[in-house]
């Protein structure tokens, strides 16, 4: 997708949105420091920066969630100040948030029209609402029963509903915060087509993403934020990737180049041939249909596949967090008899869950408590906790993982995403595991923290841990893993090792047999499960 005529400057009608010297202060932090931000009509504008650079704050100020402490904002030529999200929406600025903000229990149609339902005699006209909703969503490639609760939809379909909702609301500016983070490749394609359509209609899109590939595919211009300040604005085509990364990090481009896109080193030396973990024929009621894999000490085994292929379920099954119908798991030669997380932990299996907010951190507890939590039994004697031992362990990991906090007594909720992830890693490492299961360890964390986590995975493998790495980021799998097992529909379809692990090979493996045949499979599966409204994004 090439840049359009509006690129690089204001369109004929001037910028649709312009801020000057926008400032927002939180206790102890200057989140936005004199931000000048211009949006032209019908452009797709990338907003990038590391976590904590101020992207979210800027979005929230633009959309009326936060009131700015200083500076001015002009929208369609007039000075504005939105005191509530509703005001910004009414003016035509809509946001699609990272975690899709819709209401799961309400029907799809009601989510789409909430606040502007079609009326008849003052009451909501459901017949019209449903037919209009179905028509609109079909245009977004979502073909579902709109009277069903939204919670039955896939994440991709939900995102499309959110987008459709914004456009129905007559949006002039649509802000998308990490829209593809939970989408499958096909859904991403649909999203990009829809974004293309918005651009043609003169709707401005602000696109926030950590995925550089996507930015270069669809964005016209870019604004780079760092530490609450704009460090660069301009056409994206004039800026190469290294230049962009170095602007985001505030580091020299050459240094970035030397380090590569990820910080993984080369292949890991395998210490022993005896696998530390063997999973054999894992099956459950719906998602897993016989997954077998083995990890040797000192090896990083990548687990590839599409969303829903059973990657997370495999890891959860190994960690004892999911009931299985059949299958055997052996850790260091000893079969796991009892299927529970406690048994898995005792055997030396630790898992870093995908959703660190809901399954990982305990936000109100301190860094120290979060780290020591799982290791409590090992840190106590006769049931009493030894404060000194906790401190020792916590200090070791805070230093080793370079966890940045105002002190180990700070609440984890106040840390950045990357540091939260490191706290979780520390929690599991404190257990001295033999096998570490990492489910999307770098999702949603900033470039700097990502590099550190990747480096750490390398180090841990070098120390002899068996690591299972799940990632949707192909680069991460390719550079980080020694071998990659590819899953599809809950079964292993391919295994790549050594030189075979390349982007092309991986894509082919993931896509293998993934055509009409797979579609029929899925349809059959859907029919089997008796799903009346087979929802999906086309």
């Amino acid at each position, binding site marked *: 997708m090439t840049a359009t005529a509006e690129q690089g400057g204001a369109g004929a009608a001037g910028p649709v949105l312009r801020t000057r010297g926008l400032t927002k202060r939180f206790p102890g932090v200057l989140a936005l420091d004199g931000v000048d931000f211009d949006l032209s009509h019908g452009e797709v504008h990338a907003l990038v920066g590391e976590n904590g650079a101020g992207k979210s704050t800027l979005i929230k100020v633009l959309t009326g969630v936060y009131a700015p402490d200083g500076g001015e904002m002009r929208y369609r030529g007039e000075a504005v100040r939105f005191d509530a999200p509703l005001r910004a*929406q009414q003016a035509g600025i809509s946001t699609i948030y990272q975690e899709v*903000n*819709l209401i799961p*229990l309400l029907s799809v149609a009601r989510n789409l029209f909430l606040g502007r339902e079609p009326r008849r005699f003052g009451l909501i006209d459901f017949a019209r609402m449903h037919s209009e909703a179905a028509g609109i969503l079909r245009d977004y490639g979502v073909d579902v029963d709109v009277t069903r609760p939204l919670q039955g939809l*896939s994440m*991709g379909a939900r995102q499309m509903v959110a987008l459709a909702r914004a456009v129905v609301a007559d949006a002039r500016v649509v802000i998308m915060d990490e829209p593809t983070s939970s989408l499958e490749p096909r859904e991403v394609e649909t999203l990009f087509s829809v974004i293309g359509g918005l651009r043609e209609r003169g709707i401005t899109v602000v696109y926030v993403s950590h995925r550089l590939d996507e930015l270069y595919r669809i964005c016209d211009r870019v604004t780079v934020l760092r530490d609450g300040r704009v460090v660069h604005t301009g056409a994206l085509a004039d800026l190469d990737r290294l230049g962009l990364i170095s602007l985001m990090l505030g580091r020299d481009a050459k240094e970035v180049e030397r380090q590569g896109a990820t910080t993984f080193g080369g292949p890991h030396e395998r210490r022993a041939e005896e696998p530390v973990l063997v999973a054999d024929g894992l099956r459950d009621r719906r998602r897993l249909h016989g997954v077998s894999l083995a990890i040797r000490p000192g090896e990083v085994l990548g687990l590839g596949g599409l*969303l829903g292929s059973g990657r997370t379920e495999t890891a959860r099954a190994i960690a004892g967090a999911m009931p299985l119908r059949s299958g055997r798991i052996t850790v260091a030669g000893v079969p796991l008899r009892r299927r529970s997380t406690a048994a898995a932990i005792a055997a030396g299996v630790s898992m870093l869950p995908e959703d660190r907010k809901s399954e990982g951190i305990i936000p109100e507890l301190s860094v120290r408590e979060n780290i020591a939590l799982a290791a409590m039994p090992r840190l106590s004697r006769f049931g009493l906790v030894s404060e000194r031992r906790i401190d020792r362990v916590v200090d070791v990991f805070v230093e080793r993982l370079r966890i940045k906090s105002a002190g180990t007594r700070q609440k984890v909720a106040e840390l950045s995403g990357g540091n939260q992830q490191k706290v979780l890693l520390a929690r599991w490492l404190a257990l001295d595991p033999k096998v570490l299961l990492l489910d999307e360890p770098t999702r949603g964390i900033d470039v700097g923290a990502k590099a550190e986590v990747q480096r750490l995975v390398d180090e841990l493998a070098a120390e002899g841990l068996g690591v299972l790495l799940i990632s949707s980021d192909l680069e991460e799998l390719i550079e980080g893993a020694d071998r990659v097992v590819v899953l599809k529909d809950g079964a292993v379809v391919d295994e790549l090792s050594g030189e075979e692990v390349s982007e092309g090979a991986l894509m082919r493996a993931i896509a293998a047999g993934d055509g009409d045949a797979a579609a029929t499979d899925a349809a059959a599966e859907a029919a089997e499960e008796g*799903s009346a409204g*087979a929802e999906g994004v086309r």
Partner: protein
Amino acid sequence: MTAVKSTAASATGLPGGGPGRKGGVRGPFGAGGGDGSAAEFVQRHGALVVLAAVLAVAALTIDGFFSVGNLNHIAVGAAFPAIIALGMTFVIITGGIDLSVGTVFALAGVLAAWASQYGSLAALALPLGVCGLIGALNGVLIAKARLAPFIVTLATMLGAWGLMLAVSDEGSETYVVPDGLALTPMVQERFLGIGYPVLLVLVLFAVGGVALRRTGWGQNLYAVGGNEDAAALMGVPVARTKISAYSLSGLLAGLAGALNAVWLGSGVTIFGIGIELDAISAVVIGGTLLAGGYGFVSGSLVGVLLLNVIQNIINGIGGLSSAFQQVVSGSFLITVVLAQNYLSRRREGN
């Protein structure tokens, strides 16, 4: 829309446009439509099915259960709790709880009885005004000061109790509704054999049902209960919606208390204690989720009827202490919540 239509067409025409469908089916929330509808049927109509079964059993085993007198007795007995349960339904759908309605009900009764010496209008206006204010206070503290509904309404529950004691001179004074009050026949008499309070309940629930299902206000209640943050970002006036729900709850509890006092002919000070728990039970048994975001008023009505029928049956069976009614109601409540839990877990596909 035209531009988007064309792009969407091209989106649909992507290579392998068909297979894209399976993305949704296999996605984490893809399947489960079939389970969902079965679960939804039980959630929506479970209480009604149980009520029908209980009525059938009662009709077969208890003589005179289906007599007009007994049915009217049940209906009128259920009328005042039902009015409270209606307000409670609104509150619970927003994801909140209102513990104050019991003592608010008692307070309204005493206020109505006291004010009835100044006429029917005063007998209604005073309790409605005071109770509406208490409800609004609940709402403001919960929505604006962001205090937990449990704590706020616990506090106003105690406050309303104290007010009631103050008005009734520590509970020693029982105000009597004077004979010949214009309001009295409108509460005590019947129209076509049906007590006026029962008719009022039917009207209130009809209006409440339409308001909940078919107005923007109703949609906002569901949205706030379903996901408060999302609702705020979707432009729903969250605070106003909550305040309206709690105000209505207070107002309806006040109305029920006032009418109850007129019906009894006096402001009985101990009447209504614990009724908030009956109301909550009825709402939950009726299929409304305590977590908020899902529910309907007809279920609450069925829930109230169910609890009252059970009470009536237990009273009808000689030799059984009426205390057993609470045991049965409690068991019912647990059964319903267990069933809801099980079904919603199946719906999510775990």
